[in-house]
C-alpha cells in the first residue's frame, strides 16, 4: 500500500485512492511532463496532485473513468502551472501568456460553425486553461468556488475571480448560456 494512503482512515476511500493511483499514475506523470518539460518538476507536480486528492478525497468524481480522467487532468495542469509560477520559470505558461492565447483571430480560425455544439467546443478549446478548468470544475463537476479553491490549492478570492471571468467570457461569446 502507498504510504500516504495510511492517513486515510476509511478503508473504502483508501482502496479507491490506491486504485486511482495505480490506474492513472503513468499518464498523469506524462501529462505533467508535457507541461513542465522536466522530470523532476513533473514528479513534484504529481506529488502535489496526490496530496490534494487526499485532502479533497470526497470531491473526487466516481463511477465514470473518463470524468475522473478529466478531473485529474485539471488538477495536474493547475499543479504544473502553480509549480512553474512558484519557481519563476521563464515559460510560456504564465497567466499573461495563457490569457494571450485567446485572440480573436485564433477564435475565428478555430471556430467550426457547423452547429452550436461545435462552436461551443471550439471556443472552449481556445479559452485560457485557467478559466476553462474553473468552468469544468464548476459546470461539469458542480463544485463551488470554495471547493475549487481547495481542489486547485489556490486562494478562494482567486478562484472566485477566475470563475467570474470565465463565465463572463462564455456569456460574451454565447448569449444563450447566461451562466
Amino acid at each position, binding site marked *: 500500500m*502507498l*504510504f*500516504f494512503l495510511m*492517513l486515510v482512515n476509511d478503508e473504502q476511500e483508501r482502496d479507491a485512492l490506491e486504485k486511482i493511483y495505480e490506474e492513472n499514475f503513468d*499518464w498523469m*506523470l*506524462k*501529462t505533467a*511532463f*508535457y507541461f513542465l518539460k522536466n*522530470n*523532476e518538476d*513533473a*514528479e513534484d507536480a*504529481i*506529488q502535489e496532485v*496526490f*496530496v490534494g486528492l*487526499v485532502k479533497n478525497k470526497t470531491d473526487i468524481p466516481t463511477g465514470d473513468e*473518463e*470524468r475522473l*480522467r*478529466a478531473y485529474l*487532468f*485539471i488538477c495536474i495542469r493547475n499543479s504544473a502551472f502553480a509549480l512553474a509560477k512558484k519557481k519563476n520559470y521563464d515559460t510560456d505558461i504564465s497567466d499573461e501568456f495563457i490569457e494571450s492565447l485567446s485572440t480573436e483571430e485564433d477564435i475565428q480560425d478555430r471556430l467550426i460553425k457547423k452547429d*452550436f*455544439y461545435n462552436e*461551443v*467546443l471550439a471556443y*472552449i*478549446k481556445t479559452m485560457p486553461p485557467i478559466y*476553462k478548468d474553473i*468552468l*469544468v470544475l464548476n*459546470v*461539469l463537476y458542480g463544485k463551488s468556488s470554495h471547493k475549487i479553491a481547495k481542489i486547485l490549492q489556490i486562494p478562494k478570492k482567486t478562484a472566485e475571480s477566475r470563475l467570474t471571468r470565465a463565465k463572463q467570457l*462564455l456569456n460574451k461569446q454565447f448569449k*444563450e*448560456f*447566461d*451562466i
Partner: protein
Amino acid sequence: MTKENKTLLENALFESTSQEIKEIDDTNLPDFSPSADFKRKIYSSHIKKKIITPKRIFIAIMVLLIATIIIMVSTSNDKEPVYDYIIDISNNAVSLSVSDKLKDATPREIELAYSPLNSMLNHGYKLKSRDAYTTEIINTFTNEEKNTDIELKQSVISGITITLDQSLEEPYREIYIDNTKLYLFERDTRSVIVWMHAEYEFFLDYNTYLTDWEEVERIIRETINAPGVPISELK
C-alpha cells in the same frame, strides 16, 4: 440557462478536456523517464506535510515525558541497595564489607547504606556480593586459617565494621586529624572502629567504659597523635 444548454456546455467542456488528454497521451516524449523512487518521494513529502504537525510533535513530547516519569517512578520504587555487602559475624561483632562505591560516600550515605543491612542482619541473612572484588573478600573471611588475622584483612578493603547493638545514640562521629577525615564507629562497649577514607581501618580499645563520643574522640586524638605512631601504621 436551459437544461439543454447546460448539458451541451457540460459535454463540450468534457470533450474539450478529453481531447487535450488524448493529445498529450499521443505525444511522443522521448526524454521522458520517471524516476524509480517516485513512490518514496510521495511518501516522504507527504510525511513532512501531514504527519509531522506541531500538534503531533506536542503529543509525542508529552507521551515521552509521561513515559519517562513512569519509568523513573517505577525504577525508584524497585531500587535495590546501591551497595554490595559482605557480612561476617564473629565475637559479637559484624564485619561488613561494602563495595568500593562507598569510598567517596558521605557519612549520611554510609548510614543509609547500612540501614537495610541492619534490618537483614536482624533476620539472620548473609549476603553475598555480586562482584569479584568482594567475592575475594568473602573467601578471605571464610578461610579458617586467616580468621585470626581478620581485623588486619579488613583494614585493606573498603569496609566498615559496626556492632550489632549500638549503645551510643549516634552511629558515627567525624573527626579530623591532620586534615584527614576519620569516622568513628562503636565496636562494642570497650572499643571503637576508626575508619579513614574507606582505606584504613583499625580498632582502638579502651580501658574505660565509654559513655559518650567526646571521650572517644579525645582518646583517638591522643592515640593517633602519639609520637612515632604515624596514621599509616595504625592499620
